[in-house]
């Protein structure tokens, strides 16, 4: 995912000058994909390209898109509650991403330090659905960017001279680290495609700390891409690229190995990581809880297509931007209040926040409580 300055985005996505104020205004609200922005005077560019490019105008984009997806699922949960059709008693949403959009990690709100090992092992479950009668839980993780091919097709590298910039990647360098990565790759591997470099830059940015670099699968043995990855990894290990990236990755996933063996993709690791963590949690619970396979919602894909017609996701989030969230029917909330296991779940997943939910000082709407 690239980060573009406003003027770059305007140029690259050919947004007419007359539309700039409207687009910036919507972006400043954190809702640049809102129908009002899409229909602003002069905006006649492809919606997908628009969404991809213009979302980057605002630093809150990642949070907004993430929340948008979570809210979509929460909204559906609420609708089902109204119909009396709901599989789960309670859904809990984690909102730490709002406080720390650059890392997607959870921090102690008071000390601003990472939580101890127990929490790190939990991974980042965005939504946890709980059945408090059957003792079942289901985690949903939204991935705002993964799998999203914003450019539609790779730009060819034919004819590009070594060291010559890329039309996309060369403008995407938002940090010194990314600049290092870019220069390293382009110097050594001028034949690398834009997509490959963009992907690497993405890893060097917001997704890097999730271990995505080390999730690289071997594509074609001996390919330039594999060399890029190997040498980049060596740079991280040698300190040429900040070591904390590597340390963070290892800490999150408990790995000590940095060889070139395949790790599978990051989603698989998150699945495994979360399952193992869950199993460690249920050991501490009174009841015999079981867990569904984690479900990953590839949200950016949901946001593709005609955004104005996808009412579930095109509308601004209707829920609070609070740091934590729980929703359930009154019955579900009552069950949570009396659950023997809620205290443990609360402690592990939400660091104590659910107590406030259950005690509920502020009832926002039927079946909804915010903390």
């Amino acid at each position, binding site marked *: 995912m690239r980060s573009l300055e406003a003027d770059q985005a305007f140029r690259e996505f050919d947004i007419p000058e007359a539309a700039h104020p409207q687009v910036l205004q919507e972006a400043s609200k954190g809702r640049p994909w809102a129908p009002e922005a899409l229909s602003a005077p002069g905006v006649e560019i492809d919606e997908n390209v628009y969404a991809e490019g213009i979302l980057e105008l605002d630093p809150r984009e990642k949070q907004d898109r993430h929340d948008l997806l979570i809210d979509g699922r929460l909204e559906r949960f609420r609708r089902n509650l109204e119909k009396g059709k709901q599989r789960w008693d309670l859904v809990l949403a984690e909102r730490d991403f709002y406080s720390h959009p650059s890392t997607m990690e959870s921090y102690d709100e008071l000390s601003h330090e990472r939580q101890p090992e127990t929490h790190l092992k939990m991974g980042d479950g965005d939504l946890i659905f709980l059945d408090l009668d059957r003792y079942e839980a289901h985690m949903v993780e939204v991935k705002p960017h993964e799998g999203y091919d914003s450019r539609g097709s790779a730009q060819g590298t034919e004819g590009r001279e070594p060291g010559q910039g890329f039309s996309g990647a060369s403008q995407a360098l938002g940090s010194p680290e990314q600049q290092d990565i870019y220069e390293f790759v382009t110097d050594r591997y001028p034949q690398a495609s834009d997509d490959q470099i963009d992907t690497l830059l993405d890893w060097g940015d917001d997704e890097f700390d999730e271990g995505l670099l080390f999730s690289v699968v071997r594509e074609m043995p001996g390919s330039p891409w594999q060399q890029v990855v190997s040498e980049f990894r060596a740079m991280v290990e040698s300190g040429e690229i900040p070591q904390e990236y590597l340390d963070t990755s290892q800490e999150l996933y408990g790995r000590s190995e940095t060889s070139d063996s395949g790790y599978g993709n990051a989603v698989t690791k998150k699945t495994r990581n979360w399952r193992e963590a869950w199993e460690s949690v249920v050991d501490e619970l009174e009841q015999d809880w079981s867990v569904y396979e984690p479900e990953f*919602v590839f949200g950016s894909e949901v946001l*593709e297509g005609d955004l104005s017609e996808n009412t*579930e996701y095109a509308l601004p989030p209707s829920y609070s931007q609070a740091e934590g969230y729980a929703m359930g029917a009154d019955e579900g909330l009552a069950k949570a209040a009396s659950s023997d296991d809620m205290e443990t779940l609360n402690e592990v997943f939400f660091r104590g926040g659910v107590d406030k939910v259950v005690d509920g000082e502020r009832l926002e709407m039927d079946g909804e409580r915010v903390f």
Partner: protein
Amino acid sequence: MAAKTFPVEGDFSNPEAFWNTVTRQRMEEVGPELPFDVMVRGGFDRGVQDVSSILLGGESGSVETDLVNFDLDSCYMRLYDVDLRPESPLSGELSSLRMERIPEVVRGLENTWEYELTEIVYDPDHDFTLGSVEPVDGTVYWPGSEEYEPDSAYSDLCTLLGEDILSEL
């Protein structure tokens, strides 16, 4: 206490046990008083050790997916892809291809359908086992089908699946 696990019985491979586990989980969302009305899933092909995808076809295209839960009241569907080969370089890329076609397929329907796209990833290091639970057969699960009065949402469902599934149940 540990998380529930089921001992292995029969000749299920781990991927097949995983697929049946996922199917059972998604069945839990389907029923007259539950969020979804119908579940359609692809069968497991033991020969290739993979799921045979369902083809959702509209007038303007078609989309492969492994499992879909339909809410006919709200004209809403949740599509699931199960990634049994997460180590593959192509992992995740198939969904991108799928995404390109879904809006066209949905647009061809009588009602305005909303949808959600999700993925469940197989962990080859985890033992997925079945024991006291029999494997799931069939591709359509519709616990409320006998009481259902076909309407335009059902017509859309037939369009998507290319068949009148009530007549098959």
